[in-house]
């Protein structure tokens, strides 16, 4: 259809797409605006003046729970989950380029990991730790719980990458006498680097925002999403929006840097090829 003139259908569908994007981002933009409410403003419009009052409020420990501590834990946990997801998914992706015994069950286990209801994973890990006398903690049980969510995504991305990976580059490296490790390090990894950045992005953001699987596995100290959830039940001021806006802005910065990094790599490559 691409070589024909734009039809009425195109404009109709483009309008639908635009409305969807509005639906997708509208609410987030709304709370971003409302987080700048004046000190007497409420949870809905109209704006009652504008100020940074609610953002300042966020950093006063008595107003919200343990914001700083939970943020720190979430960032650390996100980094841990990200690193693990990249390494483990890459290794598994490489394994799936060959045949190995048990590849089918492992594949279905990965799919199951995505579709098993999160609260079940949370409950199961909680019970397992409880029954074996281990303490749940964000860096242990919650870390494992989050991996069950991020690793399948990492693996699926690796499948997509290697399904269109041209093996003749590796063959060329091998013919020139490269060891398997050298081939991986100097040929495969540079080629798939942008995709690995994508896996890292999934690993970090999905961990940073994870709630359901972390709920029963985080132990005594909350992660940020758990803290936010606790706030929703007892806080009725725009400080909630300020926190939401801040974490969303942070996510956008992470996503933006990731996309920028991919673009830079690709541009550099195009220049080198030219």
């Amino acid at each position, binding site marked *: *259809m691409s070589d024909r003139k734009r039809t009425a259908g195109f404009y109709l569908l*483009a309008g*639908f*797409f635009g409305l969807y994007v509005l639906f*997708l981002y509208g*609410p*987030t933009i*709304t*709370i971003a605006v409302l987080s700048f409410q004046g000190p007497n403003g409420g*949870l*809905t419009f109209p704006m009652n003046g504008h100020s940074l009052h609610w953002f300042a409020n966020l950093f006063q420990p008595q107003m919200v729970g343990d914001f700083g501590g939970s943020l720190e834990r979430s960032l650390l946990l996100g980094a841990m989950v990200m690193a693990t997801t990249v*390494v*483990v998914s890459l*290794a*598994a992706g490489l*394994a*799936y*380029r*060959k*045949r*190995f015994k*048990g590849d089918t069950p*492992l*594949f279905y286990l990965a*799919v*199951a990991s*995505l*579709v*098993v*209801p999160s*609260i*079940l*994973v949370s*409950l*199961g890990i909680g*019970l*397992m730790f*409880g*029954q074996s006398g281990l303490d749940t903690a964000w860096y242990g049980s919650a870390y494992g719980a989050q*991996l*069950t969510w991020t*690793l399948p995504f990492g693996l699926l991305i690796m*499948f997509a990458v290697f*399904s*269109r*990976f*041209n*093996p003749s580059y590796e063959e060329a490296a091998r013919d020139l006498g490269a060891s398997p490790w050298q081939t991986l390090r100097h040929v495969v990894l540079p080629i798939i680097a942008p995709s690995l950045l994508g896996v890292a992005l999934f690993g970090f*953001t*999905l961990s*940073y*925002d994870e*709630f*359901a699987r972390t709920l029963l596995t985080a132990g005594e100290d909350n992660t940020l999403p758990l803290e936010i959830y606790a706030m*929703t039940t007892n806080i009725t001021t725009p400080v909630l929006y300020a926190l*939401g806006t801040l974490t*969303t802005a942070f*996510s956008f910065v992470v*996503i933006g840097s990731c*996309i920028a990094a991919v673009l830079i790599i690709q541009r550099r490559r195009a220049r080198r090829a030219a």
Partner: protein
Amino acid sequence: MSTLPVAAGGTARAVAPRTHRRFDFARAAAYFQAAPLAIVFLCFLVFPIVAIVVVSFFDYDSVQIIPRFTLENYRELLFSKVTWETYLNTFRFAAMTWAATLVVGFTLSYFLAFHVRSTLMQIALSLLCTVPFWTSNIIRMISWIPFLGRNGLLNMALVRLGIIHQPLEFLLFSDFAVVLALVHLNTFFMMIPIFNSMMRIDRSLIEAARDAGARAPQVLWNVVIPLSKTGIAIGSIFVIALVMGDFITVRLMSRGQSASVGLMMANSISLLQYPAAAANAVLLLILVLGMIAGIVRGVDIRRELTGANPGGTATNE
């Protein structure tokens, strides 16, 4: 995103050609490479599910789990009217969300795959739809409050336009709000698999259909939809599984007005009735896996998800 038109059929996987010299090495390496993934799933998915099944047969009192075999948890669960009403309500949420995400996700993918011409634009627009998925779900739910509330934007707009005279009460904290939020959060899971399927449709098939005299709706119905079947199946699995197990959306968006299986489990857990929650979890797992088994019949999801690239048109873009 695979941008190359690939022919239907062919081998199931792209496998690097092996030389005999490296054969044994590669073979052994595969096990080492797959082992970490297998270990994580074993420790944090398989064992926990085993733990749930075991505990679902345990007795309990108000403070602790008593490791003594009993069928009481299942008897209480299966013979309670509340259980089945809650399951029915959850099915209702799942069905409504599934239908809405399917229509919206399919339409968006169709636009992206067949109407957007440049690859760069396709990537940019699909990225635009993906970015919110990388932000917090809870924040995205909270974000509906100023929009749907009694004094929210929607009510104000409708009153100002003279469509209604009094603010609508049912917008926030209702089944409507729950389904709206579920669609808002989960359309991504429907859209991306369908888009991937559509991108693999050989464009010459569509040309052929058109040359044979098919009109646009006929092409859609007889070519595009059947060839997007796998993507639709994968999207459906995601959406149904996510909604069936949801509790946070239902809790936040209905503020306790609606019930769902996940919420029922969460309530048991908060009362420390772990064996009751575990029995419920087993029932939910059986139902969800049963539904998924029904969806995947006749669809090769493995081939779709492992990115089989028939015809060997591998490239490094």
